[in-house]
């Protein structure tokens, strides 16, 4: 008998704007010790499927319309909230996406760890603590006795996710649901956490449902896979076979959207550098160090976000900047555009020094140097329509008159692939991909020469990501742009950049042409980064792509 047998699950959300069929007739089953991957884009219903099994979706507006979910022969959907609470955390445990927000900041790690034991097993605190310390050691946390009394904010993201895993496994569940457990982590940490989950699963013989948007990750961990789209199961089967030989168009589209390989051909470049940065430093005051000691010892009293970086970008080149979180790559981009302070060094644009310009002197430059931000939800003013957002730069720089501005805005919308009748809408009425198109449109409105793109696709679904990347490449070609493309995602950078710079702790580790850096990395750190990228593994070559 299967450990979990879900059949005909339907979950609807009843909102004032109508009914959303979040999960629409989903069936699957899972054996003990098996790993099932559920893959889909945002809104595909993959998380709702899992949460509705455990009664963790908000009801209302959510409602389970029909279906059964037999767990060890007991129907989870009909056993009542009390029984379900007994099962949660005891027989079925969950690991969530963002370890930064999923641990209670007001309680110690230990207090949170032992709760499944004290509430489900009536184990006294002392014995529970022993077990918790043991579990912390097992998930690879050093000095577990001391960490037991730590608060979540004292731990790094990777450590917190280890704590989440320990908390999930402490009551020895039979089923572990992992909801995007590595999406919020850096690529090297992701590799460690995936390895840890695999090891623990084998050691404890626990069945796993692994929910993710990342096909490469799922190809590494799952025995079987379930592809979901818009609440429905697209197809299901043995992971490697399914990916090698996808039957449905949607699955093929997903696979095709994975950025693979390098740019078709490097662009023809001018050798004259458009932008040259020399020994750039951006230091921020470290407020945990007192004012006077910070003045006496600037080395100690400052966080060196960008520390002595030199680089150049040639005309019509796309330079990729790669690094993990906290490497200073974003600060570098901002400093170049005058959005972050420059502590030392200089920035030359077209041979002229620009890092000391005042606000007013910089204005003509701002027309030529633009930025695309990471989060299309935060980078657009929620109270301005698309027309206002796109018209503003045109009018401020005198590139349009009141007569011509509407036509120009419409042309811009054509350029970035937005339907013209959206012109009066507000940002919240758009999907993430459409918003990023608006943001791209705003950046190219003034016909700039140089654009800093700061993680422009990392908040987007994989198929949307592919569209936006292609849009950016198109526009770079069409308008002869020069670009600095910042990303934590090495595959994306490989796909788009001519040349790559690897950053770590505010310094440049390595620099080179994209392909040569990939094939022959010179530095250890680069090699580690490249090795940590999850490979999309399939049985046979996917010849039907």
């Amino acid at each position: 008998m299967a450990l979990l047998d879900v059949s005909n699950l339907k979950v609807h959300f009843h909102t004032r704007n109508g009914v959303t069929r979040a999960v629409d007739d989903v069936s699957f089953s899972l054996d003990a010790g098996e790993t099932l991957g559920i893959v889909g884009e945002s809104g595909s219903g993959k998380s709702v499927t899992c949460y509705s099994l455990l009664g963790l979706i908000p009801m209302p507006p959510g409602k389970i319309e029909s279906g059964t979910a037999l767990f060890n022969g007991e129907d989870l959907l009909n056993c009542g909230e009390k029984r379900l609470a007994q099962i949660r955390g005891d027989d079925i445990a969950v690991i969530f996406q963002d370890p930064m927000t999923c641990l209670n900041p007001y309680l110690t790690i230990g207090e949170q760890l032992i709760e499944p034991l004290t509430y489900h097993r009536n184990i006294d605190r002392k014995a529970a603590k022993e077990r918790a310390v043991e579990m912390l050691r097992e998930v690879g946390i050093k000095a577990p006795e001391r960490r037991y009394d730590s608060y979540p904010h004292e731990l790094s993201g990777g450590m917190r996710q280890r704590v989440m895993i320990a908390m999930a496994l402490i009551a020895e569940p039979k089923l572990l649901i992992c909801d995007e457990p590595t999406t919020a982590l850096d690529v090297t940490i992701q590799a460690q956490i995936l390895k840890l989950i695999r090891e623990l699963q084998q050691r404890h013989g626990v069945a796993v449902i692994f929910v993710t948007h990342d096909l490469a990750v799922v190809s590494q961990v799952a025995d079987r896979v379930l592809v979901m789209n818009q609440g429905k199961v697209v197809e299901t089967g043995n992971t490697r076979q399914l990916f090698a030989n996808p039957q449905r168009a949607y699955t093929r589209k997903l696979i095709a959207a994975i950025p693979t390989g390098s740019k078709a051909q490097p662009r023809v470049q001018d050798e004259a550098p458009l932008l040259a940065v020399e020994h750039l430093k951006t230091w921020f005051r470290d407020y945990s160090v007192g004012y006077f000691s910070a003045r006496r010892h600037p080395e100690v009293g400052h966080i060196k976000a960008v520390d002595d970086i030199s680089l150049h970008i040639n005309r019509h080149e796309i330079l990729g900047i790669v690094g993990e979180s906290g490497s200073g790559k974003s600060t570098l981009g901002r400093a170049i555009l005058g959005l972050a302070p420059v502590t030392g060094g200089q920035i030359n644009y077209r041979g002229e020094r620009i890092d000391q310009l005042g606000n007013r002197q910089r204005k003509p430059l701002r027309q030529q140097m633009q930025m695309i931000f990471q989060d299309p939800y935060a980078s657009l003013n929620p109270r301005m329509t698309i027309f206002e957002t796109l018209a503003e730069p045109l009018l401020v720089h005198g590139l349009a008159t009141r007569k011509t501005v509407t036509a120009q805005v419409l042309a811009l919308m054509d350029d970035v692939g937005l339907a013209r009748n959206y012109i009066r809408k507000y940002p919240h009425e758009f999907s993430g991909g459409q918003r990023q198109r608006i943001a791209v449109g705003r950046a190219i409105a003034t016909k700039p020469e140089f654009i800093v793109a700061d993680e422009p696709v990392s908040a987007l679904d994989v198929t949307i990501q592919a569209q936006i990347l292609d849009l950016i490449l198109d526009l770079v070609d069409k308008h002869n742009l020069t670009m600095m493309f910042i990303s934590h995602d090495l595959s994306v950078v490989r796909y788009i950049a001519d040349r790559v710079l690897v950053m770590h702790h505010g310094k440049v580790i390595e620099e080179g042409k994209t392909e040569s850096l990939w094939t022959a990395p010179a530095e250890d750190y680069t090699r580690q980064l490249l090795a940590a990228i999850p490979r999309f593994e399939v049985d046979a070559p996917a010849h039907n792509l």
Partner: protein
Amino acid sequence: MAMTESPLDTSNIDQEQLLASAEKGTSLWADAWVRLRKNRLALVGLAILVFLTVVSILTPWIAPYGYEVQDLALGASAPSREHWFGTDIFGRDLLTRVMYGGRMSLAVGFVATGVALVIGVLWGTVAGYAGGRVDAVMMRIVDILYALPFMIFIILLMVVFGRNILLLFLAIGAVEWLTMARIVRSQVQSLRKQEFIEAAYSLGLSRWRIIHRHLIPNTLGPVIVYTTLTIPSVMLLEAFLSFLGLGVQPPASSWGLLINNGVETMEEYPWLLIFPGLALSITLFSLNFLGDGLRDALDPRASKD
């Protein structure tokens, strides 16, 4: 990258209108009005407030009696055809006195809140946007003023400088702007870190344009809600001062004064408490509903149904 959905269909867009509305910067308010009209409670609140304001302005001409006309022979009488709200112990018409009282209470509420709003929003925006040392100094001043026991401060002012209504407005406004400044500052501070402000900056917009096109519109929600909370608290403050005998002096009236007098005789002549109390409550509830409605209407993200 093919454009899948870009019909060359501009026919349904009135370009002139679009241009006009977008350029004058009125579209936020125009859209807000469209949304507000769909909120029935807020509209009722607005209608009541407009009605009360108009009545207050016109009171000297439309009041049925003079506010100090006494009919000692009549004394306190229950509501009747001649005196809709009844009369007080001096035989003065209560409807008239409630109308004159509303004039005073609404004026105190709106003027003092207006003073608080202007000072508070400017102070908070400048402090939040400038940051650094300017911010530190400005907020320290707010801290100092916070530490003054304001109830005593106002009593002192009223005692010292006499019962001057204008002074009363100013004094109350001077108390209430502190919280407004704090709210606006914290809003501006969190907005300043948002990417769209950074984007506006990198587009080369002027400081003033960033403040009035990008910052202030996004602080409106909490400001409006706090404003609608300030008006009642100002009216209550005036009522409290009347209770102390420092506010409006008889025979002039305010709702606070009327309620206070009504309390003394509430067992014998309950209407003397009920009518002014109702007037105050209806005003406060209307303000509350209008405030919530305005906040939602000014946020395009709120649901559109």
